[in-house]
């Protein structure tokens, strides 16, 4: 039982990371209708920035905040420069553009920062494991879950209780009508990408120090996050969080109890995506639109 609970806690910790990235995917999907395959590599680039700053002696928390600010700007710039010119293209073109960004960013980090594994990433908090009873709860889990809760709360306040958030939701739902009442739709799309990039940066800065930084660090995490977003529904922030936690727990329990799968963990997210698409394509919390005409 304690083994089960320990794995459950580990799963929730990982799930919090998947949830953060899935939230980033949802932010972009809801505003621009794009599945951002470059989300993981955007976070990867941010994490390299974080490594660069801390490697030069910057305090960890300051480095995380600076990285998030730069990523926010970078995300907005990507929307404006890379995506705006193709925004009315077919979904296929958009997918190819994000895959192109995936490849480009992945190569850029290797050229810019070197292809070796960076092991000297500082942690924002001390490594510690609590043992209430026989259950093990690591500081990683608590920090990741705590950060996720704070992020959700901040996003909730932003979207539900500010004029900016209302404008953002309006553009997500109906860009044309929003522009007709004076909402600058383009700026809202930039905001979506900017928030997603900052969120990815935060997730990267927190999780990558526990697994080591190299060009492939984010790839499997992104697959899990896609599974989380598909499970929860690509248009549902709540779904992203719940989906992330479910995927995280499913992953840690599968690898614990089904030894034959422990080398091919990726079967969990792919299996989940497959089942969701067959049974409930809009995801657990996704909306099938109710609309009368």
């Amino acid at each position, binding site marked *: 039982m304690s083994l089960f609970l320990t794995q459950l806690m580990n799963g929730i910790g990982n799930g919090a990371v998947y949830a953060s990235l899935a939230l980033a995917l949802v932010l972009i999907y809801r505003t621009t209708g794009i599945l951002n395959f470059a989300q993981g590599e955007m976070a990867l680039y941010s994490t390299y920035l974080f490594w660069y700053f801390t490697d030069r002696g910057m305090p960890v928390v300051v480095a995380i905040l600076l990285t998030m600010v730069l990523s926010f700007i970078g995300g907005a710039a990507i929307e404006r420069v890379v995506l705006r010119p193709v925004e009315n293209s077919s979904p296929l073109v958009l997918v190819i553009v994000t895959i192109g960004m995936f490849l480009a960013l992945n190569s850029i980090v290797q050229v810019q920062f070197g292809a070796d594994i960076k092991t000297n990433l500082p942690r924002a908090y001390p490594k510690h494991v609590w043992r209430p009873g026989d259950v093990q709860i690591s500081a990683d889990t608590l920090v990741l879950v705590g950060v996720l809760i704070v992020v959700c709360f901040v996003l909730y306040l932003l979207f539900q209780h500010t*004029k900016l958030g*209302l*404008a953002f*939701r*309006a553009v*997500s*739902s*109906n860009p*044309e*009508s*929003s*522009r*007709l*009442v*004076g*909402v*600058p*739709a383009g700026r809202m799309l930039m905001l979506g990408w900017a928030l997603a990039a900052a969120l990815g940066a935060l997730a990267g800065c927190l999780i990558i120090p526990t697994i080591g930084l190299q060009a492939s660090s984010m790839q499997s995490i992104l697959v899990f996050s896609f599974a989380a977003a598909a499970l929860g529904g690509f248009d549902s922030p709540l779904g992203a969080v719940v989906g992330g936690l479910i995927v995280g727990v499913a992953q840690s329990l599968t690898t614990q109890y089904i030894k034959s799968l422990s080398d091919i963990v990726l079967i969990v997210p792919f299996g989940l995506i497959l089942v969701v698409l067959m049974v409930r394509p809009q995801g657990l919390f996704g*909306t099938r*639109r*109710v*609309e*009368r*005409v």
Partner: protein
Amino acid sequence: MSALLEVSELRAAYGAVRVLHGVDFSVNEGEVVVILGANGAGKTTTLRAICGMVDAHGRVAFAGRAVLGRKPEQIAAAGVAHVPQGRGTIVDLTVVDNLRIGAYSRRDKEVDTDIERWFSVFPRLGERSGQQAGSMSGGEQQMLAIARAMMARPKLVLLDEPSLGLAPIVTQMLFRTLGDLNRDDGVSMLVVEQNANLALGIATRGYVLETGTIVTSGSAEDLAGNDEVRRAYLGI
């Protein structure tokens, strides 16, 4: 009376298909102007060109300033509200959020007062303030679209087929309200409508648009008495 909206030589095309071949008309301050025309005459395109949603050439001046080529959100902020065909309510937002977003360009503190006002003009909206706009009936959504446009406190409202798909009794009520708004608030309106009877009932002047060109114009009474107009658009 000065011209609030002055449109001259307006031309627009979708790809190689030319839709407007040089349209001229104007809306004076305080007027309700109606544009009559059959399907495909270019009525909707005319409105969309004015508010910046389609590329067009020629000259559109609003309150003395050229607006053609500016972004829809800038034109909206300048005081032109558009109630698009098919209502254009933001279906995922609640009724009250739709009204709030209508006031996006405003900086004053009276938004809540205005919301209460529109709830009293359209009591159905007040009853459903927390409901998702997309789940309401067509008539209710049309009321919401009009109230949302008015939330911007516009100088000019463009209405694109407000009667489309609505029951006659709802349409009559809507036009009565539009007439009241014009009289009491002094809001100018440019209405595109197939239901010529109702539209001419509240209009000051009107134009008839045929395949992208204005063919007739005159006061609402003249148009209502014009034999050709009666035959083509009033079904008499």
